[in-house]
Structures are given as C-alpha cells and as structure tokens.
C-alpha cells in the first residue's frame, strides 16, 4: 500500500469522524437517535461550496459558514420535532434527511441531481487532523462540565431531569444544533476533498452509516466514536481482497461486534490517562497475585 492510498483513507476517516463526533453528542450522550444526519452533511457541503465558489471566501471561513448553515436548519427542524418522543423523533429525522436530498436534487442553482463539479480541492490531511482535534477537544470539554452531565441525565431519565431543573427542550436543541454543525463541517470538508458534490452522496445510507459507527464505538464514549470512525471507514478498504463480498463481510463484522459486545467497543468508558493507569495497575496486581499464588 502506498502512502497516497493510506492518506486518502485517513482523510476520509477524519471527515467521517467529524460527523460521528457530533452524532455522538446527540445519540450517545443525549439519547436521541437520528437517521437524517447526512442531510446536515449535505447542507454543510452545499453552503461551504457556496462560500468558496459564489462568495469567494477562503476555505476555513466557508467551512464555518457551512457549520452555521447546518446549525440554523437544525434549529427549525428541532423546533418542529424535538417534542416528539423516542422513535417518532427518529422517524422525523429520517424524513428530513431524505427531504433535504430531494430538495437539492431539484435546485438547479446548485446543479440539481447532476451535481456541482469544479470545487477547489483544498481539504488535506493536515486540515482534517487539526479540525478533528479541535472537534474532539470541544466535545470533551462540553461533556466534562455541568452541561455534559445534563445531557447524560436527559438520556437516562427525562422526567427526573426536568424535576431537577434541567430545561430538557433547550438541551436537546443544543445537542441537535451542535451535532448538525459538526456534520456540516464534515460535509464541507468532503466537498472540498472530492471537488464535486451531488445530492446522491448524502443518501439515507450515509446517515445509517454514521449512526452505526456511533453505536459500534459505544454510546456515550468519545474515544469509542473516534475508534469506530477509524475502523469502520477503513474496514471496507482492508476488505478489498474479498471483492464483491466485501460489504457482506463488513456487515458480518458489525453484527459480530454487536453480538459479542452489545455496549459497543468502548461501552461508555473513555481512554484517558487515569483510566490507562488504572488498567495497568490492575493488570500488574493481577499478574503479581498469580505469580505469588504459583510460588506457594
């Protein structure tokens, strides 16, 4: 494998990671399942492309514009749907994702279903890594604060959250808007990696892929989302040897993980220095005891 190929996979993983991180806040920490986040990616992609192509903005400001665009749209979607409970919200997001794609299919200004070619190809590994690191730090800081605890409280027990003074609707809205902004950034980076966007790229299957990645990594774990995005984006590439069977193998791998570890790879825990230290000390104590036992 040459570096160019590996780099390509890494960039794609990084872009997926950005969308997955946002979704991790919504699904993993707040407990709202969404099957429409490809829609927010699409909005991010098209708004960012509009920024660079029509408004002549540099890439990074255009990216922020894309994030803001996705967040604004999510605000209106949230106003309409966030009062829905569990499954109903999930179905509403599914409908939203498809609606966005169909609208873009019919807007000739953006090239309609034929797509929009000729975007500047400016996304590279450095930008993706920097953006991802910023994304992880922001998310981790949110989670390790009273706001993060409130998100988790809502996931655990909505009614009790209200009675301890959490404005549930506002927190759900915040989670949705932040996740949409993350998806928007991912969409914008994708658009400027490929230099071409098309509504078909943001189909329902893309949303499903993002949700699968979050669950695969473990709900309520940022490290899990990171590992999940890296593994699940590169897995189809590593499986190239299986030729036409590779997506079957991919599916089987996901099913296998979910059966053997229903809580996901990380199962709600994080990889932090203290956790690693704890793990090591436990490991050494266990092996020490074993050695002691053998001596007797």
């Amino acid at each position, binding site marked *: 494998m040459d570096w160019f190929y590996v780099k390509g996979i890494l960039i794609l993983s990084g872009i997926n990671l950005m969308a997955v991180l946002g979704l991790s806040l919504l699904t993993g920490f707040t407990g709202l399942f969404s099957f429409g986040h490809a829609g927010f990616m699409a909005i991010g992609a098209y708004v960012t492309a509009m920024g660079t192509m029509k408004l002549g903005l540099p890439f990074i400001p255009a990216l922020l514009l894309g994030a803001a665009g996705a967040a604004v749209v999510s605000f209106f979607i949230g106003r309409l749907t966030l009062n829905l409970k569990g499954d109903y919200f999930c179905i509403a997001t599914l409908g939203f994702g498809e609606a966005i794609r169909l609208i873009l299919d019919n807007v000739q200004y953006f090239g309609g279903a034929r797509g929009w070619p000729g975007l500047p190809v400016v996304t590279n590994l450095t930008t993706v890594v920097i953006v991802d690191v910023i994304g992880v730090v*922001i998310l981790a*800081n*949110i989670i*390790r*604060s*009273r*706001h*993060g*605890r*409130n998100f*988790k*409280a809502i996931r*655990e*027990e909505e*009614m*009790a959250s*209200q*009675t*301890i*003074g*959490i*404005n*549930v609707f506002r927190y759900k809205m*915040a989670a949705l808007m932040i996740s949409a902004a993350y998806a928007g950034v991912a969409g914008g980076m994708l658009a400027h990696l490929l230099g071409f966007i098309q509504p078909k790229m943001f189909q329902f299957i893309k949303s499903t892929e993002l949700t699968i990645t979050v669950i695969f990594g473990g709900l309520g774990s940022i490290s899990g989302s990171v590992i999940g995005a890296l593994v699940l984006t590169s897995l189809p590439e590593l499986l190239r040897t299986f030729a036409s069977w590779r997506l079957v193998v991919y599916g089987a791998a996901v099913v296998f993980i979910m059966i053997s570890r229903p809580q996901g790879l990380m199962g*709600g825990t994080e990889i932090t220095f203290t956790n690693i230290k704890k793990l090591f000390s436990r490991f050494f104590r266990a092996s020490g005891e074993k050695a002691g036992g053998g001596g007797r």
Partner: protein
Amino acid sequence: MKLLELKNVTKQFGGLTAVGNVSFEVEKDSIFGLIGPNGAGKTTIFNLITGIYKVTEGEILFEGIETNSMEPYRVAELGITRTFQNIRLFKKLTTYDNILTACHYNARYGLMDAILRNKRFKAEEKGLLDQAEQLMGIMGLEDRRNVVAGNLPYGLQRRLEIARALALNPKLLLLDEPAAGMNPDETARLMALIKEIRDSFKLTVLVIEHHMDLIMGVCERIVVLNFGKKLAEGTAIEVQANPKVIEAYLGEEEVVVC
C-alpha cells in the same frame, strides 16, 4: 406563613376527574402528609404541583406565585423538588454523578465557559464538586460513591433520590412514598432522616405515604384524599378519629342487629 397553597384544584383526564376541587395550604417549615387509598389522586397532585401535569381548573400558588402554567424545570427553579414513587434515578450513572448532576443548578457558567475552560468554569465547577461531596456525607452515601445507581440496594436508591432532590437547595421537598418497600426498621430510620433534613436544610416537606406509623409519627398536619376529593384535614390524632377516614380505609361499620 403559608408556603404552598392549592385553591380548588381540579384535574381531568378526558372524562375522568383524577383530582376534584381540592384545596389545602402547607405551612412553611412543616411536615405535611398526604394520605388516601390507592387511586385517590395523591401522585396526581404531586404531578400538578411540579408542573408535569397542567391544572384543568383552580390555582396552585407557591410563595404567592402562580405555578399553573410553568414548565417542570421552572417549578424546580422556584425551589420545589420531588422524589418519585417508582424511583427515577439516572440508573447508569454512579451515585456521585447522580448528585453532582443535580448540583448543576448552583452553577451558572455557559457552554462557552465550559469549552474554553476559563476561570469562571473552574471556580464554579469546584463549588459543585464540594457541594456534591458534602451531600454524600450528609446522606451517608460515601462508601457507595462509585456504585452505579441501578445497582444500589432499594433503600439506598430511595435515599439517593432524596439526596439528588436536596442538591437543588429546595424550599419545598415532595416525597412520593419514600418508605415503599422498606421494613419497619428502615422506616423508622427514614422518619428520623426526614425530620433531620427538615431541620438542617430549613425546608418544608410534603409527603405521600401508606405507612401509617411514618405519617402519624412525623407529620404535623395531614390531608386525606379519596376518589380525588378531600375527605378530611387535621393533625394525626384528629384524622385518626375521623369516621369518614375510617370508612374510606376500612369500609363501613356493620350494624349488628340483635
């Protein structure tokens, strides 16, 4: 001085009147009991006070402020918190995190402060940690600090729920059957705890309970409900002697004709 006042409160679900024309006043710093047979509308009244249900008719006043149309989180901000009949803890979080989450109300830093980890965040977050620590101590939960709430024994889950409610520094604490499923020994300890909390946190307690010894032991005033209507009100002794109450609980006295 009255802290909470219900004025002709009625709640209807479709054609069913769950609570009909109930009025009572809760004095500040008192322990007030709400009793009645199953389905009498006790928990419905709690849900009305905390804003989970909206009142159909009538008024609920807390410190003179009408709370009828408020969202539950606003009611909590006013200083009313509660526990639930069927425990509603954050089951997958640890004991400590359950309390710490509820302490959030005493910090005001925003999302941006959290992202930037600035001075304000650090100072207020430290305050929260101290407060959670203190509550763990008062409620005797220190040795269960890292136990996931769902794995705690039943009695401690109830205790944790009270601790979580206290984290908001409430003025009025609503306890919905705190002694359900407890043995007499645990009930006696709970009685002592309720009195202790009232004195050390300077709050008013409104308690629903089926354990008569608990109600009669701690409540200064009692309201009896039956079929959504107020049957009687008074001190423990007055209520116990009330023939209507005896009838509601034990049925009508049979008249033996010789």
